């Protein structure tokens, strides 16, 4: 069974630039999560979907971050104008029917 796939693996930006992260969850998993993990911290939930619907995006900085999952499968997380404080690893995870989360390798973002 294929795992959760994310791309790109790394991104380096100047402040003010935009970037998009892409996630392909495990087939059949209807719930998808985006987490932000700063260095030496735990994963912090940004947004999660059930199918194509946003269930919770209360921790997503809405002025610069957006996330979509239009067909209830792949998802894209976008940062419109990156700041140095956005430097972190961005993890996508999908959940099976037994509540288990499976994480992708993540995208390591550095904002200079």
């Amino acid at each position, binding site marked *: 069974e294929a795992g959760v796939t994310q791309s790109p693996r790394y991104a380096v930006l100047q402040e003010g630039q935009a970037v998009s992260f892409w996630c392909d969850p495990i087939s059949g998993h209807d719930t998808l999560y985006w987490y932000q993990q700063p260095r030496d911290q735990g994963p912090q939930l940004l947004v999660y979907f059930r199918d194509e619907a946003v*269930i919770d995006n209360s921790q997503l900085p809405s002025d610069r971050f957006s996330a979509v999952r239009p067909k209830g499968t792949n998802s894209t997380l976008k940062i419109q104008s990156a700041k140095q404080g956005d430097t972190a690893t961005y993890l996508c995870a999908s959940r099976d029917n037994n509540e*288990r*989360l499976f994480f992708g390798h993540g995208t390591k973002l550095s904002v200079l």
Partner: protein
Amino acid sequence: QQQVRQSPQSLTVWEGETAILNCSYEDSTFDYFPWYWQFPRESPALLIAIRPVSNKKEDGRFTIFFNKREKKLSLHITDSQPGDSATYFCAAPLLSGSFNKLTFGAGTRLAVCP
């Protein structure tokens, strides 16, 4: 914001000793509490989880103890091995509106010395 708290922040034990990692959480209406471990340059992966119809879940050298009344959990790693050196995250499904969102603690960094 509701939180999941872990202690200690870091822990060093000798090979063969028992490591004890602690976790507490705030309100949750859904009983499923996983522990994830994360090795350097890798993503978190599920280690063990408890659905507290009982207050203990054992899987080999790893055991979760759960105290629902006090909203506390602990992870015991017996006969610790150098390969257990990793960061361990406790997670809890904290209430958010009418949904439960899986919230992670800040982690305990475990080092097992040979």
